């Protein structure tokens, strides 16, 4: 069953996706499922192990379940400081 998910991209991910945010209707159970589908879509996301994900402004695990209406933030590898 398809869910409405808002995806926000940051830094390199935003440049690769060509947008900072998109609303998608996808059949995904977890954040990892979402990431995999977006890799097919944008072709250029980094290896997931170095990336982080937040769901509704909370840092989450990749196996966290997604619900209809969730906002998912996709963070490429960070390099602050």
């Amino acid at each position, binding site marked *: 069953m398809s869910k409405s998910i808002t995806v926000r991209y*940051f*830094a*390199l991910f935003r440049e690769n996706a060509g947008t900072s945010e998109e609303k998608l209707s996808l059949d995904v159970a977890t954040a990892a499922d979402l990431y995999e589908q977006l890799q097919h879509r944008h072709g250029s996301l980094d290896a997931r192990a*170095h990336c*982080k994900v*937040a769901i509704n*402004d909370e*840092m989450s695990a990749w196996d966290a379940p997604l619900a209809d209406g969730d906002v998912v*933030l996709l*963070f*490429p*590898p*960070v*390099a*602050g*400081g």
Partner: protein
Amino acid sequence: MQMTDKPIRPDELRDLLMDKTAGAYCSFEGWIRNRNDGHAVERLEYEAYCPLAIIEGEKVIAEAKKRFPGLQAHCVHRYGMLEIGECAVWVGVSSEHRDEAFVACRYIIDEVKSRLPIWKKEYYADGNSGWVNCERCAAHAAHD
């Protein structure tokens, strides 16, 4: 933990950590330098997702305080466009003795650099630009 697009003032921030029981103060600053990996750098742009950067930064500071009771610590990170020589990040720690001041200051900057949703893009003298890879990813890759 504070995120700001204004110049960081280490002298004012230091004074916030003064405490009659503190005998040691250690600070770290990350400065924008004019070279990286052999490229001449002209300026640096920091992108941050501030709401979560602050939450994660507070977690890092809380971890340091839990490890060393009595410690006081604070961190400020810039975002936006920065010029050579500017301070991009400041960490300050005060404590009873110097051991924990050094260890906690190092812990905080290491974790801040690798856990907060902050990214930096270098603008080179030759007109190119590029996102900087994270240190830990590079370290992991080297071990692969």
